[in-house]
């Protein structure tokens, strides 16, 4: 059924249709609408779930971990400071193989206080063993949550569904909300092999010596390596059922592109508008929007950029003392495969500074001007 809903509510609908059983969340702008709607859904029994009104994000994740180990499907949502507060427990979720699904609204890290779009919060967590899916429109958000439950529960690896603050979380779009029966057919109930069973007691997560820790972590990585194929497979199953496919990346006009823009989040759809205009001027630009950042989609990225003359990566983030994080990861993906292609690294939009079609035009022109980039970071829009 088609509804006009905001990005945040697309997360709530995804959790509801996914039949989340325990939700523990703490409000933070601009995530509040996610949990407010879920709270209503639990109150009026649209969703049969327990909603624990915790006192902090750290406790929110702790409650989800406990519930997950008890065998329940869990969901939470947060943003920037809250995500950072959960950091310790993000490691716990992946190491504990608890398939929590979490919505994260990409918001700048303080100080000073900023509620606007920035990717540093989620990217700071890229090493915690969580899958990360960067979304670009409301339909994708809802579809991704449902798929995330399926993928996470198969691999027993938690995942985050990520939305830009305001430009995605608060914008309203038409979303095709699937019927519950069809979602139930697609997504079976959570049935983990590892869970609390009083009749057959085990101690979970105890002291682990150097003799055993290495193998546990090896296993986690090995499972994560299966994720790209599983994400595509799960996406294809979703397409069969609901008519929409989105796998690891979203490719737009890359086949004949001379310059490929690599983007993520909502700027990915802004790029398309710029591409249409640039193409009118005869510049062959394409857009590769990376949706799954963890696991990093090495193979598909390498394949898509094969024919390009230049690559321009746009980061709405920065790893201080290094460069934009998507830029660095794309570079490392191409090392040993396509080292010679010039890669330009642009940083734009930190703290919610607007990224518009003109931004992409500027980026494309700068890329066209030089054979190779002279700097590792090209700042776009900073007042200097």
């Amino acid at each position: 059924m088609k509804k006009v809903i905001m990005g945040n509510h697309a997360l709530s609908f995804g959790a509801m249709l996914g039949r989340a059983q325990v939700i523990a969340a703490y409000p933070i702008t601009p995530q509040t609408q996610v949990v407010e709607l879920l709270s209503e859904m639990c109150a009026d029994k649209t969703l049969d779930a327990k909603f624990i009104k915790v006192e902090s994000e750290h406790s929110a994740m702790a409650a989800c971990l406990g519930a997950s180990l008890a065998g329940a499907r869990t969901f939470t949502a947060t943003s920037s400071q809250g995500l950072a507060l959960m950091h310790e427990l993000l490691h716990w979720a992946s190491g504990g193989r608890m398939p929590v699904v979490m919505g994260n609204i990409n918001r700048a890290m303080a100080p000073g206080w900023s509620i606007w779009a920035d990717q540093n919060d989620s990217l700071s967590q890229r090493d915690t063993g969580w899958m990360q899916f960067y979304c670009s429109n409301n339909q994708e958000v809802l579809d991704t949550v449902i798929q995330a439950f399926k993928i996470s529960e198969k691999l027993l690896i938690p995942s985050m569904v990520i939305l830009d603050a305001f430009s995605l979380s608060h914008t309203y779009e038409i979303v095709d909300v699937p019927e519950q029966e069809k979602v139930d057919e697609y997504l079976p109930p959570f049935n983990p092999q590892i869970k609390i069973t009083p009749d057959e007691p085990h101690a979970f997560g105890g002291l682990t010596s150097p003799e055993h820790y290495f193998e546990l972590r090896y296993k986690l990585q090995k499972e994560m390596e299966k994720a790209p194929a599983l994400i595509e497979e799960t996406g294809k199953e979703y397409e069969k059922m609901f008519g929409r496919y989105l796998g690891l990346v979203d490719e737009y006009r890359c086949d004949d592109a001379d310059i490929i823009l690599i983007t993520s989040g909502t700027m990915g759809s802004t790029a398309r508008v710029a591409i249409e205009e640039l193409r009118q001027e005869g510049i062959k630009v394409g857009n590769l929007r990376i949706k799954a950042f963890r696991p990093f989609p090495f193979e598909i990225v390498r394949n898509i950029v094969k024919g390009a003359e230049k690559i321009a990566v746009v980061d709405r983030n920065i790893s201080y003392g290094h460069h934009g994080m998507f830029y660095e990861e794309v570079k490392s993906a191409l090392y040993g495969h396509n080292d010679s292609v010039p890669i330009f690294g642009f940083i734009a939009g930190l703290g919610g500074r607007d990224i518009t079609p003109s931004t992409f035009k500027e980026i494309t022109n700068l890329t066209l001007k030089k054979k190779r980039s002279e700097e590792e970071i090209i700042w776009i829009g900073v007042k200097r």
Partner: protein
Amino acid sequence: MKKEKKMTLSLPEEELMNSGHLACQGCGATLAMRYFLKALGQKVVFCIPACCWSIIDGPFPYSSLDVPIFHCAFETAAVSASGVKAGLEMVGDTETTVVAWAGDGGTFDIGIQALSAVAERNDDILYVCYDNEAYMNTGIQRSSATPYGAWTTTTPVKHFKERPKKDIDAIMAAHRIPYIATASIGYPEDLFRKAKKAKEIKGTRFLHIYAPCPTGWKSRPEDTIRLARMVVQNATFPIYEIEWGEKYTLNIKLKEKKPINDYLKIQGRFRHLTGKEIALMQDEVDRKWERLLSLVNSSREKDQIPR
């Protein structure tokens, strides 16, 4: 050999704790767990944060308890238990008791935020704090449960702990939860009775168990039970219950309150104290005891338990 007379055990014989665990000789925390398990039985799940018990239980892939344990993050004992309880109920198990089992560090200090929130919501968990009065697991550093006068590695003799022990029971009473009780391993039958009683109550239940630590208190291992009795008999750690934050019941009445000197003498952590300091401590114990007695007396006058 006397086989005609039966052996009289004041507690059930069945054990849910096995030997081979890693506790120090004479560990009070182990006895707290042993008695608690006898009262709760098999249908229980423990959430144990970082504390002595997270090590005592034994390393992966072993466990010395015959009950499920979720080794959770340090600050999260109370809320992990809430999460487990919610999860179990959603998968159809409404019988299993979910217990948060934490030391004084994980209760009074780093865990107090989560505990307060759980109590305020009255989540259906049984929270047990076994109190050995310092961060023992990391090597005897002071906690807010460390009593005035005590030596610890972070309150050395020249700068011993000058702040009094935090009154966690009063803090919990302020949350108006259905059941709070103090207990001591020196009185196992009382502990057992309270654990059994707490098991049947719905909502947040809080047990505060005094558990001597020979290693951290510099006492002899064989004195552990003696200390656990003396601390009650001199009113340093009174044994009482609080229902709904209002009704106080004194369980172990003192015909004759003993002075604290003998209790302090057998613990190395108090060896450095002067007569003046001990007098201050005695005065504080006396005042707190009077305050408790007046709370108990005013409770008796009320007919109903107010909510």
